[in-house]
């Protein structure tokens, strides 16, 4: 507050500038307005800070809890330790981290291939239904997940009784479900980059003698690769964190981490959960930062 006043005084005090209004007359008004503005700004920053804290609170709190020394949660923590990280990185949790990683990795790769193909087709070959088709491919993002989950469960159960193909509780069964919900993210990311890529570079490549296939691999693919990498990271973390579909389909033999945590919590709750959660939080925050570096998150979200 005082700094602003000083600044104003300085400007007014120099007084040599004939364009400036007469100092004595304008100063009170400026100060009052400045005070009000400053108050509004500080108030605004506090409000924004509080809201952002609300959003970030669970992620931060879970990290705090993970350093507890006791075998139950207390607040505040009196004795800190890293022993729960040992617990998080062994036994069932490690198994599930492993399961989730495999699931996320394979579904992200598949989503990238399928999603990039779809995004390219939908953006480069426009026809009367392509807008509708784009919406169709993005639909899994905008429907209550539980509905999709129960439908998928019934579908694969029926599939088993009719064809003998068993997808329930298996990696392929989970994989298909996850590709279904991660592909839209890849389509969106790649589309965003495709829209920014000058189509003329493809024409240029063709005018220089590159066949359409060659053009795609030599020019288009490198140009949209940030989008594909971004889509991959997105697909990975979406799959890694998916809950509803995994809950319906998975079985104890192959249980993704969120489901393991959920089931663990129904039995007991100790800082082991917090430790494994903290690992996920740190990992996701890093991945988010990477995507932002790669393509700029604002373009996709």
């Amino acid at each position: 507050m005082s700094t602003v006043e000083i600044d104003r005084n300085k400007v007014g005090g120099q007084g040599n500038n004939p364009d400036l209004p007469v100092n004595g007359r304008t100063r009170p008004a400026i100060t009052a307005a400045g005070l009000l503005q400053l108050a509004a700004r500080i108030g605004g920053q506090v409000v924004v800070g509080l809201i952002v804290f609300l959003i970030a609170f669970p992620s931060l709190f879970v990290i705090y809890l993970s350093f507890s020394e006791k075998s139950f949660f207390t607040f505040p923590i009196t004795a800190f330790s890293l022993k729960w990280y040992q617990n998080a990185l062994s036994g069932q949790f490690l198994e599930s981290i492993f399961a989730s990683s495999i699931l996320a990795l394979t579904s992200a790769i598949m989503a990238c291939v399928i999603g990039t193909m779809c995004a390219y087709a939908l953006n480069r070959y426009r026809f009367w239904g392509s807008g509708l088709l784009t919406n169709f491919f993005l639909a899994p993002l905008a429907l209550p997940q539980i509905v999709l989950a129960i439908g998928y469960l019934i579908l694969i159960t029926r599939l088993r009784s009719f064809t003998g193909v068993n997808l329930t509780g298996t990696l392929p069964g989970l994989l298909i479900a996850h590709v279904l919900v991660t592909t839209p993210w890849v389509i969106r990311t790649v589309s965003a980059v495709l829209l920014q890529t000058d189509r003329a570079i493809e024409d240029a490549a063709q005018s220089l003698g590159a066949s359409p296939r060659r053009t795609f691999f030599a020019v288009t693919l490198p140009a949209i690769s940030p989008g594909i990498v971004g889509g991959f990271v997105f697909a990975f973390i979406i799959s890694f964190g998916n809950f509803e579909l995994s809950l319906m389909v998975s079985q104890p033999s192959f249980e993704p981490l969120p489901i393991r945590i959920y089931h663990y919590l129904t039995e007991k709750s100790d800082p082991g959960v917090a430790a494994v959660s903290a690992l996920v939080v740190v990992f996701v925050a890093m991945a988010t930062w990477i995507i932002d570096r790669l393509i700029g998150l604002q373009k996709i979200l």
Partner: protein
Amino acid sequence: MPNKVLNPGLPPDFKPEPNPGMPAPLKKGKQAKGHSEEDVLQPQQRLTFAGLLLPGMILFVVFFIGSFIFVVGYSFQRFSPTEGTIDGFTLDNYQKALSDESIHNIFGRTIRISLVVTGLGVLLAYPVALALSRIEGFRRTLLFVLVISPLFISGVIRAFAWSQAMVRPGIINEVLIWLGVIQTTGRLNLLYTEAAVIIGLLEVILPFIILPLSSSIRKQDPALASAAQSLGANPLVTFWRVTFPLSLPGLVAGTSLSFIICMGSYVTPDLLGGPRLPVMATEVYRQVNYMSDWSLGGALAFILLAFTMTVVSLYNRLLNGKG
């Protein structure tokens, strides 16, 4: 279904710009083949196009459309505890779902929570969205990552964190005592209340409202606000008369998504509301997994879907019609 909902956060101009040098208005009455240059694909292109879409189409038609067909299909079949589902068309499940008092309560609670959360979400999202659209550089990146990274952390983890914060000797009660709001003897029982669910969901949906909102504010020409102020509008009037109306598309997209997410959320109400406060998603899961009544579960799921989508598309039509 409205485009806005299905493309959450995407700018409304999610279409390639028309080719420069597009033809002037129709001059000679040739038979119309379509709407634009790309309408007419060469046979070779058509093949490439189909080939590129094929894997996605197979996946989505079989498993996405298939899932819906089965939800709807099962919801119209009879269920017997001994034989499972029996073929044959019936409306019993819908009748049961719509006449059962406890399901009424569950449905009502789900809608109430979703509306309250979305409404509070708008109030809390605006300041952050405005801040995001005003600042630049590292501070912006930091704020942005803080706002969105929880988006990708599994709901279980976040609900678990909230539940630990809300327990009687938890951080929230301690802070309130420290602030002098409550006495040590009057600790609040937050966990397993609707308030707990609302706080938890609010944290889940805030990024979904903030993101489209900030992008639609950011898209506005900053000169517009300056122009309004130069014409004598104070910052508040400027916000209300210029910034807010122009941000409506983003607001509609964000709140629609928020409502959809709240209506279908499972893990947050389950962990923060507990078994005494079931919502639609937890009830669907209970019917399917514990009661093994897939038909009633299907009917509930379909009611949830139909209601949510109807509300959202009416809402979109209403506000976009005005905008």
